[in-house]
Structure formats: structure tokens, C-alpha cells
């Protein structure tokens, strides 16, 4: 984004936006069955209606070297967008990586349900996703730690000869 993006960075945004951002981030990383099953079980008659047709497209990913270098275009990623509305008026939005239209729709439905029934969605949908992501991160950390190498220097003596 442009310079305006700084005003809405995760550090300075109001708590209700931070909470929504956290929920949408978890939802965007959910597996399809982590959404499909709880929604079918707990909210079988959510009655969501598509406000915009579900579309797949490309977004430009931007990177910075070391977190403070000049931004550059890293490459494009396929994303799918869904926008739905519940009969009670909440609008759910989803942008997910990949081309899975039905998964994007489930994410949007979960986002709208979160706005209506935050507590239920947190326990039924978000908590298991957060748990899996934390376990995966811990496993990756453990695997990386196991391959750690401590370097030390051998004096070979060639230069001295």
C-alpha cells in the first residue's frame, strides 16, 4: 500500500480492527475441512448470499530485504476473493491464496459469523486452527533446531608454511 498504510499498521490500529484482522488471518490459513465441518454442524442454515461473484486473480507481492530495505515486487500470487452477506446483514470478506472458490466462500461466511457471534466462532472454528498453526510452527522450530551446527575454526597451517 501507499504511505497511508502506515496509519493503519497492526501496531496503531484500534483493538476491534486488530481482533478482526487476527480472525481473518487465521481463517485465511484454515484448511477447507476446518471450516466446512464446523459451519455445517453449528450453522447449517446460515443463508449466506454472494454479494459479488467469487473471482480468482493475481496480487503483486512486495518484499523488503531485512525488513527496512526499499520495497520491490517479489512476484505474483493467485488469490480468490469472496464477499457474502448473511440474512442478518453482516458482510463477510475473504481473500485466500489459491483458486479454491468454495473455500473462499467458507472463509467469508466464517468472517460474517464471527461478526455476529464472536465467542462461538472463536471456540468452534478459530481455536482449533490457531492450535494447529502453533503446533506446526513449533514442529518447524524443533526440526530447524535439530539441524543446528556450531562452527569452529581449524587451523590448517597452510598459510604459515
Amino acid at each position, binding site marked *: 500500500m501507499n504511505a497511508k498504510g502506515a496509519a493503519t499498521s497492526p501496531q496503531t490500529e484500534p483493538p476491534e480492527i486488530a481482533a478482526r484482522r487476527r480472525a481473518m488471518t487465521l481463517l485465511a490459513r484454515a484448511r477447507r475441512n476446518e471450516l466446512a465441518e464446523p459451519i455445517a454442524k453449528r450453522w447449517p442454515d446460515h443463508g449466506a448470499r454472494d454479494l*459479488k*461473484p467469487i*473471482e480468482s486473480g493475481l496480487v503483486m507481492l512486495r518484499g523488503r530485504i531485512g525488513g527496512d530495505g526499499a520495497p520491490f515486487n517479489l512476484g505474483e500470487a493467485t488469490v480468490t476473493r469472496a464477499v457474502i452477506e448473511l440474512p442478518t446483514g453482516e458482510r463477510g470478506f475473504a481473500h485466500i491464496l489459491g483458486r479454491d472458490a468454495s473455500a473462499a466462500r467458507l472463509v467469508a461466511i466464517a468472517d460474517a459469523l464471527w461478526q455476529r457471534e464472536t465467542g462461538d466462532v472463536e471456540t468452534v472454528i478459530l481455536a482449533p486452527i490457531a492450535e494447529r498453526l502453533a503446533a506446526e510452527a513449533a514442529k518447524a522450530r524443533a526440526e530447524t533446531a535439530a539441524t543446528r551446527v556450531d562452527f569452529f575454526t581449524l587451523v590448517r597451517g597452510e598459510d604459515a608454511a
Partner: protein
Amino acid sequence: MSALAFADPTFESQTAFRRIMRAMSAPGTILACGEALAPPPPLARAAAAALLTLADFETPLWIAPSFPAAIGDYLAFHSGAPRADAPDKAAFALVDLSAGGLDLARFALGTAEYPDRSTTIVAQASTLAAGPRLRLSGPGLKSEATLAISPLPTDFVAQWAANRAGFPLGVDLIFVADARLAALPRSTTVTEGAR
């Protein structure tokens, strides 16, 4: 219940764009546009089609205050266009001829370096073919064409002559009535015609 826009955005906006381009290149031609849309009233279907097709996040849109807020929400949600706070800062403008006058000089006319930075006005009328007759001539027209828009401000022909005199600067007009549209580009000369 929020109103929906194009069911198939790619193809329907291409169809609408094609019709707008034909209307612009042959001023006075009345074409059907936006037949499948159901925008919130009182927005005309062709006006919705034109703005959903042309406006996007780079084109500030000015909406006449006579339209209810729901129209602004609908167009902002589906086109992503930001709202212009003044008519002379707008790339596109939506006005309702039934709700009063039209002052072309209030809109952006472009600059000598960039005559394209002018406002394209979508003007909503109740009919394009049953009002006082206007005779059109100019580029795109082999012989004279006519339009019969109603309601139209009484000084419209004089205002349009002033707009034409500033060529290559000036505004372009898209007239809409329900699901039909006709265009009046800045290159067209308009004279009052006998009925």
C-alpha cells in the same frame, strides 16, 4: 438486503463498455445497456451499468446530492471508486436531470496538457426520445442525428455551445434513461431543432 451488480463482471462490463464506446463514436445513437441489472432506485439501470463499467479505484466519482446515500454506497461497494468531494475533482459524475439543473461549467474541463482529465457526466433523464428535439452534428456523424432528451435545462444548448467552444477541453455526457443510453462527446455540435 444489498443490491447486486453484474453477475458475470468480466463479460457484462465488456458488453457495456462496447455499447458506451459505440454510443460515444456515433453521438445520438440510443443503445440498450444494463438490462440485467437491478440497482437500488432511483438509479437507472444504464447509469449503473456505465458507472460499474467505467469507474474504479483510480477515478473519483461525484454523485449529485439529490441521490439518496444508498446509491453512493452501492456504487462505492461494487466499483471501488472513491467519492470526489467537489464536481471539478471528479473523473465521473452522476446527476439527475429530473432533480434540477445541470451546470456543465462546475465540472472538470481538463487542462491544455491533459484534456482527458475532465469529468464524464452520467446524466439521468426520464426519456431520450420524447423530449424537445436536439440536432447533432460533428465527428462520427455523416448526416445530422437527433436526440430528444427530457427533462433538460432550458439553457442546455447555450451551455453545450460554451463547452464545445473550449475544445479540446470540455466535459463529455452520457445520457441515460432506464436501460438505454446515448452519448454526447465534447466534439459534437448541438442546435435546437424544430419538432
